[in-house]
């Protein structure tokens, strides 16, 4: 569950995010889309408690898990990375690695993984842990089509098993449309369109949103 009201984030005198109200019921999956710099990362970091909003109130369910936009490898092997702080979950870690096609890399140093492999590992590292709010910043940006499919499958199962609320940002239309039951288009820090993906596709709320979706070419 998420409740934002009158949230505003400014750097010096520049407003990068301004959201009047946003309510996300428990269990919903929300996709954030919009051009570079529209405020997706800012919003996710505010929800994750990593960034304080300049104004307004933010309520979010806990515990929260948050995947930063830039995947990061800790020292040590892939398996060590995944089990950090949760050593009893070995079986579950192995299952996740299997499902994301990383099992053969489990004893490799995490720092030596390719971009797409690292991104999959970063997601496994989150998903061995339970949460009620899952925040993912461009979780498939470095993955090819096959890698993206694997990740979406794992995400779907995690969501079903935990009933968590999920918010993810993406530049890939298919990711937004296949995972989310709600779509928000951000533009210059404000919400340009908000609703069911099919509704928005059929009848965008504004000209800007219409043009943005036309760029998707689906």
């Amino acid at each position: 569950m998420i409740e934002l009201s009158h949230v505003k984030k400014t750097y010096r005198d520049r407003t990068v995010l301004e959201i009047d109200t946003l309510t996300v019921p428990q269990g919903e999956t929300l996709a954030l889309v919009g051009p570079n710099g529209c405020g997706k990362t800012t919003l996710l970091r505010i929800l994750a408690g990593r960034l304080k909003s300049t104004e307004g109130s933010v309520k979010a369910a806990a515990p929260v898990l948050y995947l930063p936009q830039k995947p990061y490898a800790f020292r040590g092997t892939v398996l060590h990375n995944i089990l950090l702080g949760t050593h009893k979950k070995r079986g579950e870690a192995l299952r996740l690695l299997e499902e994301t096609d990383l099992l053969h890399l489990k004893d490799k140093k995490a720092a030596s993984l390719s971009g797409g492999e690292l991104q999959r590992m970063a997601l496994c590292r989150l998903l061995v842990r339970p949460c009620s709010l899952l925040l993912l910043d461009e979780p498939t940006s470095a993955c090819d089509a096959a890698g993206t499919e694997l990740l979406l499958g794992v995400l779907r199962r995690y969501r079903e098993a935990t009933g968590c609320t999920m918010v993810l940002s993406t530049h890939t239309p298919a990711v937004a449309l296949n995972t989310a039951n709600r779509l928000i288009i951000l533009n210059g820090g404000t919400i340009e369109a908000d609703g069911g993906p099919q509704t928005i596709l059929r009848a965008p709320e504004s000209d800007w949103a219409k043009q943005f979706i036309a760029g998707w070419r689906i």
Partner: protein
Amino acid sequence: MEESFRKAFELLLSRDPELLQILGVTLRMSFFSTTISCLIGLPLGTLLGTHRFPGKGVLKKLIHTLMGLPPVVAGLIVYMLFTHYGPFGRLNLLFTVDVMVVAQCLLITPVVIGLSSSYMETATKHTIETAKGMGLSRGRVLFLCLSENRASLLSVVLNAFGRSIAEVGAVSIVGGNIQWKTRVMTTAIMLETNKGKFHFALALGIVLLLVAFVVNVAASWTVREARDD
């Protein structure tokens, strides 16, 4: 110069008992000064570098000022604390190796805090963002920040060791340069210089440098180990 080098090697090879004793005191003192100031300074420096709180700016300036604390002043402060009538006079520690370690920690801990905090400020951004995102506890995040950067932090430790082994002002005030007890390499060098035995003093200096070199080689070897794992 040539004579000093010859003397230095003669000294080392002769296994002169007094020289060995002085070397032993020096290494013992530097080991404890370095260890204690790093055990205090590295976690504090990491906390300072990775957290925001009111008064942080003032605290940083204070630490940077303390980084420039003249050793004789540190020695004087500790001397006044541990002298017979001072607040810790009952401990009877003045002119012991223990109190030399205390004085050196006063000097070196701010350096360790200052260096590690400015390094950690920039180096731990992704570590913290990722670890907090995983819901890890504060303690574990701190530990991760330290262990992720252990190769770079080792150079802070070496800097601390270098300062400790080379320091003379504080240890001569609180240690008193007592033969067979609190005399270390630097105070011995000063004594020989004052006596006019320049070649012998320089020989001692060369021995000191050799010891520092061996420690540095051992440490850089550890760094390589840490990088490879």
